[in-house]
């Protein structure tokens, strides 16, 4: 234990710097700020320096090994270690108000293909409703034989499924249509997450209500302040749509639609209506605001695509990336994620020279349909600059396009569905920057 003493100014600054060295990001800044405040009121300051960082290293006995730690249930619901800095983040100027905005998943810090529920990106059109599950109901009506109202208990009685699927906002990467803008992987690709979802297949519920022959479309509506609504064609509903209450082993998080949401695997995230309260079966689509004014793709000729549901194959290198620069020459495993709304990832290729020459990578871990898929390439780095790219190919044979190919088709104003090959410029010092090659 350190002793209490009145330090000199240089000693105090040194102690503050030592303490700050072990901290990250905001903590560190706040600490420094506190330290500076402490310096300002020096006369009365007393600090107790903690043991220096090196004392835990071999051959010394680490301090955490010299006494008992907390026992069971010291945290009935656990949380990440205090040294971790796993956070959703946003770019404040993207939207005008936080209740109708977006935050991004910290892809740079994830391990494996499952996104922890607490850092799944957020997209709200009217904030997060605080829904009491006992008072939540799902009504299914319209062109059906038996209009039903279902409680959460009712829903859990149906045969359930659990599936690992990605969910992605169609605006992922959308800030980059007209140029490189975002300085971090979290902001270029973070409107993306992959979770295990548990619920009942929508086809099972539709059997229960009995869809009439002219029922072709389903309106899904949320219980949020925006009354978020989207028209879903019956074919999708009968294929793989899930009405989910579970996420990664527990109830949905409020941010993800607690207690009930739709999940349309492989389709743009906003079709997976959260806080789901109503399904109406009809013979035509509804053309509501989020499928006309928004989430339609404006083309250079002034016309616009509607019902652009599928998230086409995409990939990105997550290590290295701006947040994870190369720190050492020598062996390096280049890692990343690929995903496709049309099915499984078949292959991912990698280029070190901006797309002139390409190498095959290895897929690792689980390769699931409509799920994040990891790829890996082992190489060595000796300080040479790289223009690093990855290119996904899915089981339909679709090859992830170049930015130029997308722009040639769609111009620069379509906002959504920018799934082009992404470029990281690795500098001689190992720093990584987002660049575009055209």
């Amino acid at each position, binding site marked *: 234990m350190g002793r209490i003493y009145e330090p000199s100014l240089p000693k105090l600054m040194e102690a503050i710097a030592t303490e700050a060295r072990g901290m990250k990001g905001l903590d560190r800044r706040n600490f420094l700020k506190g330290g500076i405040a402490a310096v300002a009121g020096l006369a009365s300051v007393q600090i107790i320096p903690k043991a220096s960082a090196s004392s835990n290293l071999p051959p010394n006995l680490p301090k955490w090994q010299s006494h008992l730690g907390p026992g069971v249930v010291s945290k009935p619901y656990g949380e990440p270690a205090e040294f971790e800095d796993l956070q959703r983040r946003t770019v404040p100027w993207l939207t005008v108000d936080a209740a109708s905005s977006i935050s991004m998943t910290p892809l740079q810090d994830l391990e494996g293909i499952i996104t922890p529920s607490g850092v799944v990106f957020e997209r709200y059109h009217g904030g997060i409703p605080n829904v009491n599950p006992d008072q939540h109901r799902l009504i299914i*009506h319209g062109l059906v034989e038996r209009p039903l109202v279902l409680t959460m208990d009712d829903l859990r009685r149906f045969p359930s499924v659990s599936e690992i699927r990605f969910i992605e906002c169609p605006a992922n990467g959308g800030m980059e249509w007209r140029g490189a803008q975002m300085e971090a992987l979290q902001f270029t690709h973070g409107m993306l997450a992959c979770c295990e979802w548990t619920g009942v297949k929508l086809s099972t519920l539709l059997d229960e209500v009995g869809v009439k022959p002219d029922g072709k479309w389903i309106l899904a509506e949320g219980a949020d302040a925006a009354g978020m609504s989207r028209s879903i064609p019956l074919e999708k509903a009968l294929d793989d749509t899930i009405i989910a209450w579970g996420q990664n082993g527990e109830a949905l998080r409020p941010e993800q639609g607690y207690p009930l949401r739709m999940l349309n695997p492989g389709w743009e995230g906003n079709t997976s209506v959260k806080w789901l309260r109503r399904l109406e079966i009809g013979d035509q689509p509804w053309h509501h605001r989020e499928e006309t004014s928004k989430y339609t793709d404006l083309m250079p000729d002034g016309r*616009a695509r509607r019902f652009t549901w599928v998230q086409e194959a995409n990939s990105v290198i997550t290590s290295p990336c701006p947040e994870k620069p190369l720190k050492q020459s020598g062996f390096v495993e280049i890692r990343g994620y690929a995903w496709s709304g049309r099915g499984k990832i078949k292959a991912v290729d990698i280029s070190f020279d901006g797309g002139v020459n390409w190498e095959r990578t290895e897929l690792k871990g689980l390769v699931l349909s409509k799920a994040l898929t990891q790829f890996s390439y082992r190489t060595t780095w000796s300080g040479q600059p790289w223009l690093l790219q990855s290119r996904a190919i899915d089981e339909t044979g679709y090859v992830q396009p170049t930015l130029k190919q997308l722009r040639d088709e769609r111009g620069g104003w379509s906002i959504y569905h920018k799934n082009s090959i992404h470029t990281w410029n690795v500098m001689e010092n190992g720093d990584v920057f987002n660049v575009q090659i055209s």
Partner: protein
Amino acid sequence: MFRSLKLIPLLLTMAFSVIVSAGPLGIGSVATPEMIAGWDIDIRPDGTGLPDGEGTVAAGEGLYEAKCASCHGLFGEGEGRWPALAGGEGTLDTLHPEKTVGSYWPYASTLWDYIHRAMPYTAPQSLTDAETYSISAYVLYLNDIVDDEFVANRETFARVKMPNEENFYVDNRPDSKNERCFENCADPKAFEIVTTINGLTPTGHFKEDSGVAANHYDGNPSAASESGISKEKNDTKIVLSDKATLGKGVYDTACQACHNPGIAGAPRTGDKTAWVSRIDQGMDVLNGHAINGYQGADGVMPAKGGNMSLSNDDVINAVAFMVELSR
């Protein structure tokens, strides 16, 4: 005791039980017409779902100015970065497309549906059917789609034709045809490499001395876009009164949409300069303006921020919250 208490609602449910459905698994209860009628709010382009009643452009003008203009502008031009509702005709194929109701939206029904389900932003589903008809009519009028004599009802509304309807088509992707080439796939001499403009996005979480960490929502996009980086918040601790503490919840749901960014002349919360002359008028005046609405030289304060479901005490508490953060 606890156990038996929990049973009471269950027994009640069973006693007054609803008709059990006759689906294959027999799960759930019949949704009655009354239940459905309350929630079935959607409108389709063919007019399906439009209710009885009517509204006029003339009635819509006053409603719009009271409930909509503070965000969308008096003429639908959009305040700050809130959506513009009018204008933009002929811009969709230019380098600066303006997607408004008039220039872009394919169906008038969408307007009725969305206003009724989600507007005003801070008080969704608070408008009556007649108000929704009138405001919808007025927004169409702002876009020169109907004239000032227009009376909106189930029949007339479904007949409104939007100018951009024909310019939508169903997704025709995949549209790009990349090849899985491995060697000499591009000409490096033709490369044009565009780099990121530094300072546009928060990078404080991984770069030292680069600006603020993006772990909270600053809520002032205009300041961020003007200066390139968002400003760090003042960390001064303010101890709130009980009233203001109660008001924070109200503020978060009803007031912050305008008072965080400071749109429509709303004084930004925490902006002492903007608040000082207002605070000097005394709390009674401030509370009166907040409850009853106020039209000043700087802008419009809708009565209760447009959310009439708030009680007067809710509003007074929220005002206390803003004032205590802003002096």
